[in-house]
């Protein structure tokens, strides 16, 4: 149990921008994950992703990692930003790009 939380933690810390989603950025398998990953793509910087449908252990344990019950989950600089609704709202008002540009220089 502790191992999987550590695995999640490593992914969150090793990627300045990280999304846990259903499916992949190329082939999302959930509308909410699809919209969220599109917003990240449009910010134009690299990001890490984890397909939770391909990793049952992460799927089952991610909700308690940051006490957030649903997918997708977006992390920037190790902090949970939110799920689909928050990420999209921040994308629309420009805050998401600002945060990502700050987290991923160049």
């Amino acid at each position, binding site marked *: 149990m502790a191992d999987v939380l550590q695995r999640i933690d490593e992914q969150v810390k090793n990627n300045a921008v990280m999304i846990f989603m*259903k499916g992949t950025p190329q082939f999302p*398998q*959930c509308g909410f994950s699809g919209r969220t990953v599109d917003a990240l793509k449009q910010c134009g910087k690299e990001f890490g992703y984890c397909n939770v449908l391909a990793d049952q252990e992460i799927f089952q344990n991610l909700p308690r990692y940051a*006490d957030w019950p*649903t997918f997708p989950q977006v992390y920037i600089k190790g902090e949970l*930003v*939110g*799920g689909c*609704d928050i990420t999209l*709202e921040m994308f629309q008002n420009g805050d998401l790009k600002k945060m990502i540009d700050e987290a991923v220089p160049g």
Partner: protein
Amino acid sequence: MQDQISQKLTAAFAPEHLEVINESHMHNVPAGSESHFKVVLVSDSFKGKMLIARHRLVNATLADELKNGIHALALHTMTTEEWFAKGNAPESPPCMGGDGTNT
């Protein structure tokens, strides 16, 4: 489930405006399911709180429902002022095929 969500949110947030919409029919679940919901919650108790804090409050209020039955919860949380400025909550996305019952 829909009524239960409404009752809990009304009690917790004294909303100016509340919509609980069952969007399960848009997803890969049996007819009549109560699994996918959209909530539009307008309450001045959100004043001065970041979005993530507002969502955490709602998630905490609906913790039992999220554990037992709610599969997806699209959340649009606004203060009265933001509600008037914005007009409406966005449309939820269509299903893209992932199993909507167990995962």
